[in-house]
């Protein structure tokens, strides 16, 4: 017996190593340990680096000094602070001196915790408030920054978190599938999962983590967050592997196969280390989600219904639906949102993102729209001045060369690996041109006499057909495709080396293809036959026809694909991988697992 006890760790490891789950968790442990080792050496001062240092026992005095400094710095506050501070406190409280306990408590009395105005702001704010109120119960309003008692703060935070969880499980997120803002949902929910004392809230947090990671997994390709995005920053849009979500993919999915912070990959935006909370959390990703994220052995169509963030004016619905279509292969992911203004400022409507060992592994077009009225749809500021306000924080909003934009004059129709994007730009629009991002890291970019532009990126082949004349503008890392026609559009079809063999064969096949758009300027209609024989016809502002039959967005589910299934409004998400299923039932707050 004594001998068994002495060797039980080795026995357990041996047992686990015989199973996929054991293997994946072992590698997860290795990655999280590696992450903590790396981050604990970081010199910067934030709650995640402090947690890594304290968790690893590296530079503990320095970490305590950093934390002390963050509690005293009155220039910082807000919702990022509200959740980061409580997370750092709860993960490390056993290591903190009494003085820091007091200072951290005092921060929730004296610091200004702005709630903000976006979905991710509120998740961070209310998670922080929930855990802080739980940590310091039975205190009156004089002890809190907002004058409310612990009980009032807890009740309010609990109510909103329950509201958000239910809304997300039934209607999807408003800030959906954002490679940047994904972290601002996952990270606070991780600490909610780890420290909520209420077992129901803890369970909900676990289910929300499963939900968020599953949502990511279905559109994940080797570290890239594929498909259309509600929001993202230009630098991440043009370099998908530079997005913050890549670190989470690495930690939980085991992809990409290099460390995302590697300087060798030319990445510059990996100074943010929220993943540390994942590394120290007790949450473990269900193996089925990792499998969904990484098995690209067969191509698949995945559709989703999300919702527009709160529309406060100039709309008939507060949260109109967003329809997403994503086609996933082992080489590339082509994804699109149905078009129009679905999010202000940072929308990314469509792209093809391909597996590559080079940066800027994506290609897309957009209309660089901006208007005060667009912003006034979502923000209460005066619409004639709000564009300048937004420019202060999102520096490119009015920039004609920006790489993120929602436009009321852009619509899409996708079928598998083919996409039609049409534009009907108002002549009074502030910017009236289209731009396309063609990275210089493409292996080839060829303008064919047939009108097609062919690109090769590793094993991915891209056929791009502009409906109107265009020009090229050379920039540092890309060629900017630009077209000035107001009634405009492109047709895109993607192929792979496995389907066509040599790139020359791919080009040859498309040289025979004819796009039917003879009266496009008057009927705004394009008809196109894909390489696999599907006929897709799209009228801007009108019908989307697939082989003559209308595509009905109303039939879209919350999730619909081989891996994820959820009826909109049901509150139930079913994950499937081979003979395994995992069902998140947000009505019963229950997780059901089956193996057939």
């Amino acid at each position: 017996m004594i001998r068994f006890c002495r060797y039980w760790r080795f026995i357990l490891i041996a047992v686990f190593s015989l199973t996929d789950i054991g293997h994946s968790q072992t590698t997860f442990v290795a990655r999280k340990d590696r992450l903590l080792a790396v981050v604990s050496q970081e010199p910067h001062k934030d709650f995640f680096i402090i947690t890594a240092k304290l968790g690893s026992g590296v530079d503990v005095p320095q970490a305590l000094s950093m934390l002390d400094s963050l509690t005293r710095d009155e220039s910082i506050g807000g919702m990022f602070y509200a959740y980061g501070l409580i997370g750092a406190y709860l993960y490390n409280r056993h290591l903190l001196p009494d003085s820091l306990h007091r200072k951290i408590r005092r921060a929730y009395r004296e610091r200004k915790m702005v709630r903000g105005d976006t979905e991710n702001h509120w998740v961070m704010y209310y998670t922080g408030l929930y855990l802080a109120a739980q940590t310091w119960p039975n205190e009156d309003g004089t002890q809190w920054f907002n004058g409310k008692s612990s009980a009032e703060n807890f009740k309010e935070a609990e109510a909103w978190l329950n509201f958000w969880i239910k809304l997300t499980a039934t209607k999807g997120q408003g800030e959906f599938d954002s490679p940047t803002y994904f972290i601002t949902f996952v990270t606070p929910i991780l600490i909610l999962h780890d420290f909520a004392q209420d077992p129901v809230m803890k369970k909900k947090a676990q289910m929300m983590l499963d939900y968020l990671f599953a949502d990511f997994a279905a559109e994940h390709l080797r570290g890239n967050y594929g498909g259309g995005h509600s929001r993202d920053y230009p630098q991440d849009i043009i370099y998908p592997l530079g997005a913050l979500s890549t670190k989470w993919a690495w930690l939980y999915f085991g992809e990409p196969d290099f460390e995302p912070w590697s300087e060798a990959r030319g990445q510059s935006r990996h100074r943010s280390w929220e993943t540390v909370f994942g590394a120290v959390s007790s949450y473990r990703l269900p193996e089925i989600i990792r499998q969904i994220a990484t098995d690209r052995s067969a191509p698949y169509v995945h559709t989703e219904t999300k919702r527009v963030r709160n529309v406060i004016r100039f709309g008939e619905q507060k949260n109109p639906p967003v329809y997403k279509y994503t086609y996933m292969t082992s080489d590339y992911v082509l994804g699109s949102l149905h078009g129009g203004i679905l999010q202000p400022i940072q929308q990314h409507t469509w792209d093809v993102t391909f597996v590559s060992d080079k940066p800027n592994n994506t290609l897309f077009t957009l209309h660089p729209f901006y208007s005060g009225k667009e912003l006034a749809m979502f923000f209460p500021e005066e619409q004639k001045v709000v564009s300048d306000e937004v420019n202060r924080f999102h520096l490119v909003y009015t920039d004609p060369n920006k790489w993120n934009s929602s436009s009321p004059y852009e619509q899409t129709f996708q079928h598998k690996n083919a996409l039609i994007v049409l534009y009907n730009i108002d002549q009074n629009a502030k910017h009236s041109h289209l731009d396309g991002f063609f990275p210089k890291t493409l292996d080839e970019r060829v303008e064919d006499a047939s009108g097609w532009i062919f690109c090769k990126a590793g094993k991915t082949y891209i056929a791009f057909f502009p409906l109107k004349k265009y020009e090229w503008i050379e920039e540092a890392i890309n060629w900017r495709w630009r077209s000035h026609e107001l009634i405009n559009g492109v047709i895109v079809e993607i192929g792979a080396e496995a389907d066509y063999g040599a790139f020359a064969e791919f080009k040859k096949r498309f040289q025979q293809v004819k796009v039917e758009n003879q009266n496009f300027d008057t009927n705004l209609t394009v008809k196109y036959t894909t390489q696999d024989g599907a006929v897709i016809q799209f009228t801007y502002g009108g019908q989307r026809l697939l082989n003559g039959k209308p595509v009905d967005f109303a039939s879209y589910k919350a999730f619909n694909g081989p891996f994820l299934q959820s009826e909109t409004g049901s509150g139930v998400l079913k994950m499937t991988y081979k003979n395994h299923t995992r069902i998140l039932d947000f009505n019963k707050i229950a997780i059901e697992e089956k193996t057939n």
Partner: protein
Amino acid sequence: MKSHTDQKLTLKNLLIFGVTEMERTQKFLKKFFPRGFLIRVEYLMLLLIFVNPLTARQSGKVCIAVLFNSTKSNVAGADRYVGVFIREKDEAEWQSISNTNLFSFGISISQHGATQRYYIAGGNGLHRSSDGGKTWKIITSWQTMEVLSVALDPADSTVIYVATPYGIFKSTDDGKSWIEKMRGFKTWYTDEVIIDRRDRRTLYVAAEDDLYRSTDGAESWSALNVGASGMRTVVQHPTNFNIFLIGTEDHGVRVTWDNGKSWKAGAGMPATAIYAIHASADGKEIYAGGFRSGVWRSEDFGQSWQQIWAAPEIEAIYSLMVDPLEANHVMVGTNGKGIYESFDKGRTWKQAGLEGAHVKQIVFYPF
């Protein structure tokens, strides 16, 4: 500019409001009482003012400016000027009396028993202070988001109305609970709510599609068919209560002289965005300002308008206030240029502090 509650000039208020109010009342009392009596009253008042720290804080006329930076500035300290600032009479400096990152859209002040209360309509909700701004409590919950305007029932301080981008909410229990009151609205964005000076159960709301009126304490609403969209502010004339003026997004000022039955555009003013309107206490002069508009004045109850200050350096005028006791004194709050004031009814202007601030509302207190 957002609404505030008028205060009756009672002796109780007089004692609390401070010296300026005392001076104002002195003229009235002189008609009826001998000089010696008045001096005794003044001494009594001053004693009460300086004994009571709250009162002492507010001795003298004060200007209160409500500042807004942007809801997209999330980090405290990102801007010096966010929250509520107060300037005592004859003082040059403005002092913050609220959280530095309280994104504020409007303010109301009420008397609740012996306590004076500030209400701030802000991004985090409706904030209330009962101690002159030393401490604040948010009295709304998550359902009542981004409060843009607050109106307080003048007869019952436990009844509060707020306008938000998600509609009108009402509390009848001093802010403990809030109920959405949107029956009759066609859209949900509301910018401002005011209470009729004649009837506290009659309210007006500047909404996105029209001006709405309720005659039953917000239980139901009807559109007044102004004939323009984008209501930015609504003002009831201080002496002729059938006159209402509206600032609109693209149609300048709209005015009614018949209590909302018919509306017309203010003559002489181009179709521009008007964010702020205010009238002198006697109602003889009405001022308006908005987006790249400069300052406009009407001396015929809003029928015709003349630009009195082009203000080319100011992109937008968010707020505007005429000193209720000195009609020559006019202040405007701008987006990013702080406050300007005039002491000659708008003929000349000078910068009056808070440079760089976005000033959503200015009030004089006492009103």
